[in-house]
């Protein structure tokens, strides 16, 4: 006599679990344009790599003889699998069972997934579709009491941000604890139209007198512009593809180093157009993304967070195969000036790069902080100071390229000046404490007030001061170490990536990432 009957029972229970919330609920999920959690997992992971844990956890129904007559699985499917051949943990809400509220969950499954990522030092991908385990007032009836809330698993959620790559994908309407789980990630994505995110959904909000639709309240674009999530994609398939690419730049945990990717591009490649990439007219803008893309290995430019703090571009990329974090200015947004939201984005990005030992390449065109009343209303200086603190606490190798301006406190924040200034300037370099145009009134107030023709004097002063603006004069005093031909930038950055690679030090950093 073998244990075959028990194995048959196990297979039967697993089969019941794979039926999820039943045919009707699955059809409803599909009608909403959404994949089921099991389809999602299969499409995210390498083929046939999913090893499920806790498949048969749920609620069984039994007859008088104790025989199983029906089964509703827990509303969270999780396990291990592979992405690009590397092991990961994946956990997804099953909305067909119930929208994630705690009454249908076995909350220890979620905690198990987080702990597995933590202890096995593996990336975790959360597929979020619902409230992610938060409460429902229905529980008052079933429990006959209420409770003081606590955020279950949050010790692990927080610790994972310091130790393993965390990706949150919003794949439905997400509220409460689910929203907190979605954004407590290094990379969070929502799928246009099928995903909305809010603290509380329209019915609760309506009780405060505000009538909104789900899209109006927490549409994906709104959430990305607010910086609550990093990105909006057009389909679930795209979300999975982006996740796979994001993870390719990162180590499996901070105890490891970012793996060198394929070497697909010539490190000494020179692009002739770079010599004219920066307009000679200081008032004209240019396409920084085109510059970044050409400096990096072909097709390795991976930007995220584009809709928020847009004066700063934050991206991953490769140089001679080595993963790097790229920070760059976008002159189309406030001339690249640091707004409060750009500073918040930069802080998080530096902490992210530092956490995962990604050398930073910073392409600088920063006219300073955004100035004006709105900048003060936004508390820009506090957020900017926080970005400075992140910069001065970061220990990852760092290389700056001053492509144009570096003015004031924010311009100075292109590098930690107390470290080796691994730095280059393009001939378009233009820097100082204040741009000449803006600083004259303050510096020559008395002279201008006394002048018969203040406007003429102003022009004369400006002309005179502009004589000193040449970057060669700065280089004469070794206040900029090197001026380079922009066409040599890729070669020099690839050299940096190769020099930086052995300097990267695995381990948990003191100032690790917060969402």
């Amino acid at each position, binding site marked *: 006599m073998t244990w075959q009957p028990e194995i048959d029972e196990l297979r039967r229970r697993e089969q019941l679990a794979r039926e999820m919330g039943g045919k009707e609920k699955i059809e409803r999920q599909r009608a909403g344009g959404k994949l089921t959690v099991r389809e999602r997992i299969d499409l995210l992971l390498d083929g046939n790599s999913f090893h499920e844990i806790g498949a048969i956890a749920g609620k069984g129904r039994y007859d008088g003889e104790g025989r199983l007559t029906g089964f509703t699985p827990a509303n969270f499917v999780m396990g291990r699998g592979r992405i690009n051949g590397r092991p990961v943990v994946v956990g997804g809400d099953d909305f067909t069972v119930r929208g994630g509220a705690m009454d249908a969950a076995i909350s220890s499954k979620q905690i198990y997934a987080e702990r597995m990522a933590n202890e096995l030092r593996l990336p975790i991908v959360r597929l979020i579709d619902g409230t992610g385990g938060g409460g429902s007032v229905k529980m008052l009836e079933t429990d006959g009491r209420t409770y003081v809330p606590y955020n279950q698993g949050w010790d692990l959620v927080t610790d994972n941000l310091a130790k393993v790559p965390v990706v949150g994908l919003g794949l439905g309407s997400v509220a409460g604890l689910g929203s907190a789980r979605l954004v407590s990630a290094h990379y969070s994505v929502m799928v246009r139209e099928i995903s909305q995110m809010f603290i509380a959904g329209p019915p609760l909000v309506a009780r405060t007198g505000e009538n909104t639709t789900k899209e109006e309240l927490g549409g994906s674009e709104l959430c990305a512009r607010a910086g609550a999530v990093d990105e909006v994609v057009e389909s679930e398939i795209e979300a999975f593809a982006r996740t796979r690419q994001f993870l390719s730049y990162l180590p499996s945990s901070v105890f490891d180093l970012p793996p060198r990717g394929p070497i697909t591009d010539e490190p000494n490649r020179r692009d002739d157009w770079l010599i004219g990439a920066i307009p000679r007219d*200081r*008032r*004209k*803008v240019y396409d920084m993304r085109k510059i970044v893309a050409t400096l990096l290995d072909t097709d390795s430019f991976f930007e995220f967070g584009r809709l928020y703090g*847009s004066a700063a571009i934050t991206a991953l990329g490769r140089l001679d195969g080595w993963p790097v974090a790229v920070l760059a200015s976008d*002159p*189309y*947004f*406030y*001339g*690249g*000036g640091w707004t409060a939201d750009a500073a918040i984005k930069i802080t998080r990005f530096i902490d992210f790069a530092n956490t995962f030992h990604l050398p930073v390449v910073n392409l600088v065109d920063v*006219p*300073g902080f*955004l*100035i*004006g009343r*709105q900048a003060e209303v936004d508390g820009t200086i506090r957020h900017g100071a926080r970005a400075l603190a992140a910069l001065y606490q970061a220990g990852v190798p760092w290389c700056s390229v001053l492509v144009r301006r570096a003015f004031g406190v924010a311009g100075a924040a292109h590098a930690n000046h107390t470290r080796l200034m691994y730095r280059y300037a393009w001939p378009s370099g233009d820097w100082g404490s204040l*741009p000449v*145009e*803006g600083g004259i009134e303050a510096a020559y107030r008395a002279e201008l007030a006394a002048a018969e023709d203040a406007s003429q004097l102003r022009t004369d002063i400006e002309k005179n001061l502009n004589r000193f603006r040449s970057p060669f004069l700065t280089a004469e005093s070794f206040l900029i170490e090197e001026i380079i031909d922009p066409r040599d930038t890729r070669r020099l950055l690839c050299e940096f990536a190769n020099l930086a690679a052995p300097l990267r030090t695995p381990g948990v950093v003191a100032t690790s990432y917060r969402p």
Partner: protein
Amino acid sequence: MATKSIRCPISGTVFQIHKAPGDSVVAKEAVVTLECMKMEIPIEAPSTGRVVSIDVREGDSVVKDQQVFVLEI
């Protein structure tokens, strides 16, 4: 034909208006230029189309998310 409201990505001052209602534009063509942080920042047509209205005047102060022009695409 759908219309698209093009909004200010930033706050600033309207420096130049390059197009008038009825004009055709191609993708990435500047319709309005703002001035901000001493830079001329073009507000471009996101796709080819026809300008329906220009909702700012030269010299206007504009704020982020304010409608600048409407494009028929």
